[in-house]
């Protein structure tokens, strides 16, 4: 297609896209490259030794603590993703299929509002809700549902999953909603006219067509949650600490930027591998039953 388009259109296109592209190059690609390079250097007290070494990676992969944190981050982010997407799907479905068109944007607006407001304070309030003398325990004890406060709610992986599922809800709802909106409604009628039940129509028509949105939702929730710092720090307790907390400690407290860089690179690699498996795996799963 290149030969018929005018040369000047290409030039103008590049000229227009250049400022954001250069910005992203110098403030994203170059810094990420710097982290990669730094991860192969080492910290010698105050200075950085610039000889190539794999020592940081050896330490990061052999020390049980780092391995545990990395594995736990993937597990917590995975659990968060599953919970968030499962909870989000019915909402997206409800708004797309059962809300009258003129009220749809109001619903989407209502869903996105809590997401924009003070992240730190929201996470802190989950601590207030889930704590030993917290809102949930006092309410349930007041109602006589439980006799003693529940202690499994706060300062562990559960509380991190609950809080993150709350924080990332709109990220899961919006892509699924968009893909549901794109479904041609006459396809559903056709399926029903041809004798499929409502449930089978959902499974064989709606769900496969919504798959791109679901895959997008899974990735958009999983990738940032692996590296979340605030939630594990505030509500995670010792059993809910994740890799981002260790990266922060290496950089800002132990002043070991090279080891912190290696951990950051490993975290990004893990995220990339999981993201590839998810997008390829689910894509195949959906296309298979043809």
């Amino acid at each position: 297609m290149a030969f018929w388009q005018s040369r000047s259109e290409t030039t103008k296109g590049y000229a227009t896209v250049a400022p954001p592209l250069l910005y992203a190059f110098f403030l994203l690609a170059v810094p990420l490259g710097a982290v990669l390079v730094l991860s192969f250097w080492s910290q010698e007290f105050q200075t950085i030794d610039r000889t190539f070494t794999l020592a940081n990676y050896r330490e990061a992969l052999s020390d049980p603590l780092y391995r545990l944190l990395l594995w736990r981050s993937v597990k917590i982010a995975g659990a968060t993703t599953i919970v968030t997407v499962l909870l989000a799907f019915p909402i997206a479905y409800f708004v797309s299929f059962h809300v009258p068109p003129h009220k749809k944007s109001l619903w989407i607006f209502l869903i996105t509002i809590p997401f924009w407001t003070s992240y730190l304070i929201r996470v802190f309030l989950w601590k207030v809700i889930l704590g030993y003398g917290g809102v949930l325990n006092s309410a349930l004890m007041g109602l006589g549902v439980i006799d003693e406060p529940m202690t499994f709610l706060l300062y562990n992986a559960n509380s991190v999953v609950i809080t993150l599922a709350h924080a990332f809800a709109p990220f899961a709802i919006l892509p699924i909603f968009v893909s549901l909106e794109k479904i041609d409604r006459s396809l559903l009628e056709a399926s029903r006219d041809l004798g499929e039940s409502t449930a089978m129509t959902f499974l064989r028509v709606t769900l496969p067509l919504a798959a791109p949105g679901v895959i997008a939702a899974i990735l958009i929730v999983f990738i940032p949650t692996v590296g979340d710092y605030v939630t594990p720090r505030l509500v995670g307790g010792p059993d809910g600490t994740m890799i981002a907390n260790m990266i922060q400690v290496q950089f800002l407290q132990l002043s070991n930027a090279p080891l912190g860089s290696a951990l950051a690179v490993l975290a990004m690699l893990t995220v990339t591998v999981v993201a590839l498996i998810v997008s390829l795996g689910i894509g195949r799963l959906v296309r298979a039953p043809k």
Partner: protein
Amino acid sequence: MRGLKLYAIGYLIFLYAPIALLPLFAFNDGTVIAFPLQGFTWKWFAGLATTPALHDAVINSLLIAVTSAILATLLGICAARANARYRFPFKTGILGFIMVPLVLPEIIVGVSLLVVIANIFSMRLSLWTVVLGHTLICMPFAIAILNSAFDNLDASLEEAAVDLGETPWNTFRLVTLPLVMPGIVSSLLISFTISLDEFIIAFFLTGAEPTMPVYIWAQLRFPQSLPIIMALGTILVALSIVLLTVAEIFRRRGLARAGVRDTGGFL
């Protein structure tokens, strides 16, 4: 479908539960953030007025948020314009690359910028280093909003202006800009809101001058300052609801101006 509607309402309660608690504790005449409530008071709001450290942090955050919002929106206009108007090799890849900060964990953005700024250039951390990071993460959101504004623009209007003898710059200023203006306002407001609330990048890149979230983070460790933080949170929630409503009104006005049916949502 009544079950689904009940579920939807239950889900909204889950989404709003933490925010609904904020004003309760902000007006509660007790230092402990727990039930039962103690009685009504304005004193935590009055306390906000007498905390100079907070005022400095708020001013820092406002400066950063305004600058980042303008920079991100200017860069976003370029990307959205290129996306809607021109075809060039590697377009999808280039635009995809610019959107990457949207899905990258923020700690990675913070750490990598810190490495470049502190370890390589040995630059001093300041409000400007935070602006650099915030512009980067606001840019994809600005592009997402501006893309729909530029996509809905009818190219024949611009062609008509050129045919009638306007210069390209005047065409952009007199025809394009007014049509995409609602998208620009919406992008500015959303970028401002994101920057104002962003913590982790600011945490890594702020020097001696903390931003508001960095200040809040430090205060969360002290039980005695929590009620004041609840009062601050209440104001922030009210403020961001106002900002978002304005952004939403502008977004809808933009859609109406372009003559497109509303499909909902910022993103």
